[in-house]
């Protein structure tokens, strides 16, 4: 009886130790997933989206919907060093600037994965040159899969 008890405890302990996973399986990428809705009768949806470019004046490059957009959605990242980001959305040559106000939180996910920056959006101010309205769906930005904001043209 005692042998079986000893074996039970030892095997459960070994199982517990061996189950601990030291590999990183968590993404540290946190980007805002934006969904676009084209309701403007004067604009053709495909033209707006195919011409859509997203950039910041602090970036050296831009994000093109034609390259990275999928199913009316595009992902971009807020500044990991400031609590405010100005992102320009340019479609059909007309620019709209979105100003994001948010809080950042830096997490060490694990020694293997390293750090992740999570964001919590407080508000968004935007120009209405072409954009009609913006709806915040999810204020917490902690991954790249959830829908965060909707932009209506």
């Amino acid at each position: 009886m005692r042998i079986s008890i000893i074996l039970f405890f030892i095997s459960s302990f070994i199982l517990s130790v061996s189950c601990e996973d030291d590999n990183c399986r968590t993404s540290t990428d946190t980007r805002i997933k934006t969904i676009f809705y084209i309701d403007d009768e004067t604009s053709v949806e495909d033209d707006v989206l195919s011409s859509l470019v997203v950039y910041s004046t602090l970036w050296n490059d831009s994000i093109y919907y034609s390259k990275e957009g999928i199913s009316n959605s595009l992902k971009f990242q807020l500044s990991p060093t400031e609590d405010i980001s100005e992102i320009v959305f340019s479609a059909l040559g007309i620019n709209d600037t979105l100003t994001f106000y948010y809080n950042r939180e830096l997490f060490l996910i694990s020694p293997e994965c390293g750090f992740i920056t999570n964001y919590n959006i407080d508000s968004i101010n935007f120009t209405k040159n072409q954009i009609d309205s913006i709806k915040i769906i999810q204020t917490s930005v902690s991954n790249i899969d959830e829908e965060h904001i909707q932009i209506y043209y």
Partner: protein
Amino acid sequence: MKNIFKYIISILIFVPIIAFSQENTDTQKLKEKKEKEKFSSIKFGYNLQTASDLIFKPERNSYAGLIDVSFNNLYSGVLEFGISSINKENDSYTYESSGYYASLGFDYNMLKSDVNDFLGVGLRFAMANYDYSANNINIEYPHWSDYTNNFNCNNNIAAWTEFIISIKAEIFKNLYFGWSARIKMNLYRSEPDAFSSYDIPGYGKSKNNFKLGAAYHIYFNFGK
């Protein structure tokens, strides 16, 4: 009228007798209860996971133990304590933390008839005090400039409760081995929002406010 008078007399006579006998019974029960609440044993336990961490997690250095004082083989008062430190260096950061924790609570033995083994439930209230820092952080982002920073967060406090289901068995005379499953619920944490710790001593990964855990202990019985 005569019957009512008899009835009142009966009540006046018998109620004090019943009350007196009840009082005697209560005193006797209290006496028996006091006799029952006898010290059973005192066990010192060592958390084996801290030993396995020394082998399998070289960045971590921790030790944890407990004192279990059992009464009538039914209830135990349990004090758990431990220290923990982490030192992890890689290309993009150096993370260091150190601290200690203690928890106080009780266990209830559901196998009270069996003096050698234990199957029961328990509750703990725990607190930890810890420092942590991350230096030489350098994170590369696709569009934004690299993020570089240093953080030092000292003298943090965390508090949590644990609901415990545990078993332990005597494998040799006065030597016990035990396993416990723990549901931990965070109550308070004094960390700054800008940078959270990776691990709280005694609690584990700090990003979860509610977590499941397990602990393996070897116990030495110094009691009866």
